[in-house]
């Protein structure tokens, strides 16, 4: 009897979390401004819509070198020196819900909050 209660609790949790995850990862980001962070501080901000041609950004960390590739409307981790290469397998940055993360070199690539940057621009105009 007690087992059944736990099975229900776990099933509901799994379903809810899966739904939240799917919602987060398939909801495309309205913003096209991407921030590249290392050790928690901003390295560079890239506007994907303004990018023409291909550009590589190299970052060095404790565990080697990461190369980020930016083309028009697209950013991805091209190569990494770390053993698992999870950031490369992540592929293109698609949604705010799933940033590209390299844990060994502490690199995070994520979409910036559009409203936040708009506020900053408004502040600059004033």
């Amino acid at each position, binding site marked *: 009897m007690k087992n059944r209660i736990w099975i229900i609790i776990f099933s509901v949790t799994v379903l809810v979390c899966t739904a939240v*995850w799917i919602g987060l990862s398939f909801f495309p980001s309205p913003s096209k401004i991407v921030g590249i962070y290392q050790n928690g501080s901003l390295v560079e901000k890239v506007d994907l819509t303004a990018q023409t041609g291909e550009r590589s950004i190299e970052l060095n960390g404790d565990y080697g070198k990461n190369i980020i590739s930016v083309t028009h409307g697209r950013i991805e981790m091209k190569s990494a020196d*770390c053993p698992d290469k999870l950031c490369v397998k992540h592929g293109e940055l698609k949604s705010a819900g799933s940033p590209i993360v390299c844990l060994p070199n*502490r*690199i995070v690539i994520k979409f910036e909050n559009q409203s936040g940057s708009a506020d900053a621009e408004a502040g600059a105009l004033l």
Partner: protein
Amino acid sequence: MKQTKTKKLILTAILTAAALVAFTIEAAIPPLTPIYGIKLGIANVFTLFTLYAVGKPYAAAVLFLRITLGSIFTGQLVSFIYSLTGGVLSFLLMLLLRRFFPVKQLWVLSALCAVMHNAGQLAAAMLMTSTVQLIYYLPVLIVSGIIAGVFTGLCAQLVLLRMNTEKLILGG
């Protein structure tokens, strides 16, 4: 009495070695998904088994020796911090909840601890990268924790139910 203690010690050593083998083999398998922290954690079958069959301090020994030696053997010292944070948190939860779960409900305890382990690792990752956005991975890590935890818990549970653990420690 003294003999029992020696037996427990030897048993712990054997279980640690077995956990280490499981951990090393699992580390050699390439990750299934491009998301950190999703793995089965077969080595935890041995921690759980030790907790129920031998005792709490022995389970702690199996867990922390496995994490330390495993990180050295697989050469991934990056993961050591994450493993340790997750390990400490899930083990504390395990100690707290141990009395509420008999062997027949070991799978529940295991699932709860696995979720705790993943949450701890995520918290460590958030601190290390100073990125709050990593919280987006929480739902996935909860799901993977439940699935992996139920599986490893059932493994340990089935072995414990079929094995005379009293005899293992006291008997000849």
